[in-house]
């Protein structure tokens, strides 16, 4: 390999190194700001102004879903801490107990008043018949 090519390889490595370190520093400084939602534990350790719209995500606690006419209330948990949510509207089809959920809303008196409820599904796919076999 001649010296010109060596120099070109060196230059390319340098460019890659600089772009990785540049973007890496940006991502490092943004840190958790790139998170899509807060977990209930993060929410507990933060003071959030009442007029700030936030997203809270986690699992719907088993047995916590209550429906009164069009209103629905439930508890989001990350199995360490949990937060209660109240929502007036239609929930997505995938919304159910013990499955992932993300709500957008305002925090007031340790309670989230949601404006939007999104369902989050995980990376597991299987036929329903197999699910029953696995559960037993």
């Amino acid at each position, binding site marked *: 390999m001649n010296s010109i090519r060596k120099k*070109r390889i060196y230059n*390319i490595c340098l460019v890659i190194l600089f772009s990785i370190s540049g973007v890496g520093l940006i991502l490092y400084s943004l840190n958790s700001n790139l998170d899509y939602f807060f977990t209930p534990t993060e929410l507990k350790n933060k003071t959030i102004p009442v007029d700030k719209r936030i997203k809270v995500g986690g699992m719907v606690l088993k047995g916590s879903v209550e429906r009164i006419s069009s209103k629905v209330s439930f508890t989001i948990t990350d199995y360490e801490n949990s937060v209660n949510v109240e929502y007036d509207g239609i929930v997505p089809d995938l919304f159910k107990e013990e499955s992932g959920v993300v709500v957008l809303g305002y925090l007031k008196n340790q309670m989230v008043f949601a404006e939007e409820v999104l369902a989050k599904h995980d990376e597991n796919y299987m036929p329903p*018949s197999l699910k029953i076999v696995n559960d037993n």
Partner: protein
Amino acid sequence: MIKKFIHQFASPKTFLLQVDKFYGLIFFTSLCIYIFSIIWGLLFTPEDFVQGNSFRIMYLHVPASFLSQSLYIAMAVSSATYLIWRVKLAAYFVIAIAPIGAMTTFIALVSGSIWGIPTWGTWWQWDARITSTLILFIMYLGLISLHNSFSNYEKADKLLSWLVIVGAVNIPIIKKSVDWWTTLHQSASITLTNKPSIDPVMLYPLIGTIIGFFGLIICLILISSKNQIFIREKNKSWVKDYV
């Protein structure tokens, strides 16, 4: 001998003749694999236990997303090859792949949005995975328009190649976004280290669609590279003979 083989293959003329020889074979094999697996996936797999029938859009979404990132890596490798060894064919590949990469990224974004409506309850959210994929799409468009803005091909190729290499930093970010941050998008089902979290009856057609889609996209890239050769080498006598 290997060096001689690479040198020969890197000549646009040999490449063109080889493409003509194998194109039909690649096209029909991948078309058959793709059609077979998409029919298998859409009609003959059971429903998912959570998502019901809507999970089936993954037979379009996953191959497109996979290709959108792989094609960028292919562009980056071609760019490096061009910058280090000044192989002209590599430069043709870079600009030939760019619009096809943009297309697959677009398919990935649109099919993901369509998938999001029945499952998440929204078609667009600014989470890390979705946003970084949108950045990839915009990057593809930017690279294409950058190349178009030059009338001097050599300058355009060099600048494009450098920019492709700088932009490659986005690929690991897309890949790891679901692990580094909390996202609405689920994390990877198929990884190199763990057992796939998709049941085999759903996984096999998915692998088939990925392979088939991959082959079809390679065919598109071959045609597109042929076009580049015709455009760039239009004054060569063998191109005139070929046409």
